């Protein structure tokens, strides 16, 4: 059988980098083909070539056995190749039908004939079980539904090969299962699907075959039925990867952070946090589990001085620091915020500037208010080496680094001084396994040194493997505070859903 798509020997060189080397990749009709690789492994470049945004230096692309030179996204679509971008290309103020009709010739130009479009959209939605109402405004749809609108747009334009670029990064677990269904029903209808994701579990769950890229080259193409997580991870990173952090037992020391009856209310009386009491000792990691939006963000903000608590006390080393400012917090502890783009780094500034954000005003980096670039550069170079930040130079902006390397910049800046307290919120969100492993290792080293850590995460595996004690946050309250050995994923999941069978311990 001729594959729907056959890419042979595709090579793309950028100045200084080989983005793709001799890549051979094929997708059959009715197949879900996973594309796996670390950030920067060449997945995006390969797909941009397929979508006509980048022209390859060498190689051959065949669609249905016919050689194709794809010139533009529009041309790709004419050939039946459609792409769902990671950031949706939808106009939020318009309806589903308007978004679908955008850029298409209607059956009777120049009129847009939205009624006709809406009817066809409804038909397609029903055929593939997408449950989309063509007259709803995009802004009123959940992220999962918006993603389906993107898929609908492609189906409407007659796409036979759909490329889903990191589609799960923005989805809740429930939405992921729905997407899984959607992908299956599309494959059953004979569509080919390229599923890009660096999450191993997802690849194993949905893909029929999986092609692994590393440093621009194909490491192998395997049937997912024949491999396990560890094999895929090894192919992807090129060495054994420790997927579960190994934590040595160690006695806890004196308490570093003590929180009593902490509460936070909005001015109009909504309770965001209530009655939080806990302490973190030296050499201890306390994990806070919970479904997103149950007060995690607020807890981190209050503890790091971004917003003041409305009740309760916070002590650091026995000293009351309630109502501390963010500046003051940074003198006693480190923080890895959950949204690194908004709260941790400045994308438009360079690597060295970002590394210096906490230090630039102090000696030896500045004297009498004038910065001293040479001292800063030496310091930054040490950090880049020590924390293995992969960057072409200290002077590129952070925007040009991968998510993993951006996070390493944050970790380097916060951790190099060996603080005794670390507050880490979703520290591995959006990172590939290599960078994830790095962050885990740093957190465990911090623990070995006797540092205290508060780890806020929605990833239960992460919480379970790293934490000495686990608190479950529901509606701004702790429903449980438990020793990690006394609980497994299922129980934790139940507690997060609000069940309180397991008492506080």
């Amino acid at each position, binding site marked *: 059988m001729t594959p729907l798509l056959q890419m042979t020997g595709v090579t793309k060189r950028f100045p200084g980098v080989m983005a793709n080397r001799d890549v051979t990749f094929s997708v059959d009709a009715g197949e879900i083909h996973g594309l796996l690789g670390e950030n920067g492994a060449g997945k995006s470049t390969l797909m941009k070539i397929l979508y006509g945004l980048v022209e390859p230096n060498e190689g051959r692309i065949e669609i249905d056995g016919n050689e194709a030179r794809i010139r*533009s*996204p*529009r041309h790709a*679509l004419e050939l039946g190749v459609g792409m769902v*971008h990671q*950031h*949706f*290309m*939808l*106009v*939020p*103020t*318009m309806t589903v039908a*308007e*978004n679908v*009709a*955008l*850029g*298409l*010739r*209607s059956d009777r*130009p*120049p*009129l*847009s004939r*939205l009624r006709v479009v809406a009817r066809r959209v409804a038909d397609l939605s029903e055929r593939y079980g997408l449950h989309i109402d063509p007259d709803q405004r995009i802004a009123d749809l959940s992220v999962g539904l918006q993603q389906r609108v993107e898929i609908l747009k492609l189906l409407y334009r007659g796409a036979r090969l759909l490329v889903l670029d990191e589609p799960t990064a923005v989805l809740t677990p429930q939405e992921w299962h729905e997407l899984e269904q959607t992908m299956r029903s599309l494959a059953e209808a004979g569509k080919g699907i390229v599923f890009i994701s660096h999450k191993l579990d997802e690849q194993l769950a949905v893909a029929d075959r999986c092609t692994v890229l590393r440093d621009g080259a194909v490491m192998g193409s395997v049937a997912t039925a024949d491999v396990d997580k560890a094999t895929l991870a090894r192919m992807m990173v090129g060495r054994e990867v420790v997927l579960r952090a190994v934590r040595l037992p160690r006695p806890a020391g004196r308490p570093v952070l003590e929180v009593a009856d902490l509460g936070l209310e909005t001015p109009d009386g909504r309770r965001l946090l209530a009655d939080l009491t806990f302490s973190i000792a030296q050499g201890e990691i306390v994990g806070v589990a919970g479904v997103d939006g149950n007060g995690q963000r607020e807890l981190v903000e209050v503890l790091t001085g971004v917003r003041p608590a409305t009740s309760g006390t916070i002590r650091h080393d026995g000293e009351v620091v309630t109502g501390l400012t963010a500046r003051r917090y940074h003198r006693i502890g480190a923080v890895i915020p959950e949204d690194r783009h908004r709260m941790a780094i400045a994308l438009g500034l360079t690597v060295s500037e970002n590394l210096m954000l906490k230090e630039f005003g102090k000696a030896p980096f500045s004297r009498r208010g004038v910065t001293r670039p040479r001292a800063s550069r030496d310091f930054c170079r040490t950090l880049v080496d020590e924390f293995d930040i992969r960057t072409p130079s200290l002077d590129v902006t952070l925007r040009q680094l991968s998510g993993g390397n951006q996070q390493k910049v944050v970790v380097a800046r916060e951790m190099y001084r060996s603080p005794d307290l670390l507050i880490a919120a979703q520290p591995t969100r959006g990172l590939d396994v290599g960078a994830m492993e790095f962050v885990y290792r740093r957190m465990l080293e911090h623990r070995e040194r006797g540092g205290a850590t508060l780890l806020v995460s929605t990833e239960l595996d992460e919480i379970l493997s790293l934490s000495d004690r686990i608190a479950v946050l529901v509606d701004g309250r702790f429903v449980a505070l438990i020793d990690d050995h006394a609980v497994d994923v299922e129980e934790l999941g139940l507690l997060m859903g609000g069940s309180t069978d397991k008492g506080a311990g």
Partner: protein
Amino acid sequence: MILMGAFGGYWGQWWTGDILLGMVAGAAAGTSLAALMALLSVTARSDQIVVGVGLNLFAIGLTTFSFREVFGDRGEIVLDRMGTMSIPVLSALPAIGDALFSQTAATYATWLIVALTWFVLYRTSWGLALRAVGEVPAAADTAGISIAVRRWQAVLVTGALAGLAGSILSIVQLGLFQENMSAGRGFLALAAVIFGRWRPLGVAGACFVFGGADALQLRLQAEEHVPPEVWLFFGMVALVAAAWLFARSGRRASPRALGTLVALATIGFALRAAAPEWSFPAQLWLALPFVVTLAALSGIAGAGAAPAAIAIPYRRDRDV
């Protein structure tokens, strides 16, 4: 652009002797300034506020200079204005007939333009694409629409319409040109767009409010004393605002805001009853349309539905 249109129209009619050709010239003058605007803001991606202010000053200078060059030693020439056209039956309607149906052809044309704008924006593929380009250009770009082409087209059409507006001001209404005669009407139009929530029909409604205020100030300037009806109107407006506030936020309405409005209403009604023979300087009345604009904007703003990508140049490398 309005000013350019006003001058272009005046010159065009003076040159050709025909009012329609004058209006065409006005539209052309507006379009040419729009082309400059598009070149700077769409193609060169400059900051639109800077470009806008610059072009504004440029237009004042250029029209003033050209007017003196062409007409400087001829004195004031008053050209023929466009006559009014009464629509037979409708203009005989009591109260509103004369006001609505006994106007110049240009006035009727504006009605058509409003309807046409709505149709183009909401019923054609071109309008759909144009709206998308203003909201999320990256989405339109991936759908195969040229952002630059659509934005150029939009700016040029706007320029033609603004030029037309200017020529109506100079040759349809007055028959003469004065330096800087548009006197900030473009900013009023901008306010009308915001007040009308960026929808053609809303904008037409907003223009009614502002136009009404403008007409009112012309009348009131002529009055020797402030007519008592003004106080009544003032009181009613305050009362309606209070009622609206109460209906919207119920018991949680701020007592101070409510109190202020009720007090204002009371003052209004008291003045109506007392009918003092006060007279205000004409300048105060002149400011009326602008006061109405400010009040309207402060009340309505926030409920806006401005295109998300307004005034933001598009770069494919950054936005895709």
